[in-house]
Structure formats: structure tokens, C-alpha cells
């Protein structure tokens, strides 16, 4: 009994420290996204204006002919998205295309009324109150 209690006591401190470390990490992980949550104002404006929208493949596309500034902005965001997809694809043992497609399903589902998205047949549609037209493989 005493031996067991000793073991328990010995184990307690490191576990407590580990829990504190996990809590601290969780706090940082929660704080970081909220601090970085803001979209670039130019990106937010182009999105709201329906000039750019979400494609089924997980990347942004042009619903109408873009200005050079909007084209550059979208290219930059798509490069960052591809880097993020590539990292997660490696971590989950999937291909970049599979992970990007799954993200695209979610990004189209997340569009707000008035925003543009691309249907599986290539048409650019405006999101309204009803569910978006998505690929049959989307969850």
C-alpha cells in the first residue's frame, strides 16, 4: 500500500506539470488564431463584392475578370493554402489534392450569402440561404 502511495505521489508532480504545459499550449493555440483571424481588407472586399470565390478544389478563383491587384492577392493566398494543404496531407497520409478537395467542400459550405462559389459543373453561383451545390463526394 505504502509503495503504491509513494508511486502515486512521485507520479503526481510530473503529471501536474505536464497538464500545466498542455493547458498553456492550448491557451496559446486558442489565442493565436483569434489574433490572426482577420482577413486582409482587400481580400475581404473582393470576396464580398463577388469578384473572387471558392472553387471545389480548395483554392480561390475569379468569378469575373480580375484587376492585377486582385489577381496577385489570390495567387498569394493560393500559394499559402497549397503550403498548408501540403503540410496537412503529409501529416494525414493523403495527397495534396485529396486534402485540398476536402477543404474545398468545407470552404464552399462556409460561404456567406452573397459570396461566390464554383459548382462542380464549373458555373459560378452566388450563395443564398439554401445549401450550396457541391460535389457528390462532399460530406
Amino acid at each position, binding site marked *: 500500500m505504502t509503495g503504491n502511495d509513494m508511486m502515486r505521489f512521485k507520479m503526481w508532480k510530473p503529471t501536474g506539470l505536464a497538464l500545466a504545459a498542455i493547458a498553456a499550449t492550448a491557451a496559446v493555440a486558442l489565442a*493565436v488564431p483569434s489574433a*490572426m483571424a482577420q482577413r*486582409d481588407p482587400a481580400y475581404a472586399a473582393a470576396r464580398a463584392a463577388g469578384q473572387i470565390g471558392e472553387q471545389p478544389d480548395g483554392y480561390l478563383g475569379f468569378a469575373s475578370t480580375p484587376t492585377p491587384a486582385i489577381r496577385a492577392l489570390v495567387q498569394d493566398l493560393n500559394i499559402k493554402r497549397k503550403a498548408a494543404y501540403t503540410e496537412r496531407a503529409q501529416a494525414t497520409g*493523403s495527397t495534396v489534392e485529396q*486534402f485540398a478537395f476536402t477543404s474545398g467542400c*468545407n*470552404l464552399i459550405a462556409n460561404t456567406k450569402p452573397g459570396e461566390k462559389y464554383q459548382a462542380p459543373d464549373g458555373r459560378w453561383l452566388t450563395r443564398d440561404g439554401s445549401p450550396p451545390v457541391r460535389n457528390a*463526394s*462532399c*460530406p
Partner: protein
Amino acid sequence: MVGRSLAVLISAAALTGCVQIETPDKPIEINLNINIRQEVVYRLDGDAKKLIEQNSEIF
């Protein structure tokens, strides 16, 4: 002789049966492909949601 021609008849019937089974082969194959893809998408869905939440400035 009768036995032999019967056997021929039976095997001929069996052959036509095989050909008929062959016909719906393609649609079945397409359905399987869709299922495999959906399986992958369902498996990755939670990770994709997390990525979007944690990197909201690029999504």
C-alpha cells in the same frame, strides 16, 4: 449420346448466364470509385475543418 448433348446444352446455358452477369459490370465499378473517394474525404474532414479554423486569414 443423349448425356453428351445434355451436357452441351447445360454448358451453353451456363455460358449465356455468364455473359448476362458481365453486362452490369461498369456501373458497379463507378460506384466503388465514388465510395473510395468519399471514404477519404470523410476521413480528412475533421483535419480540414481544424486547418481552416486555425489559419482563417488565408481562408
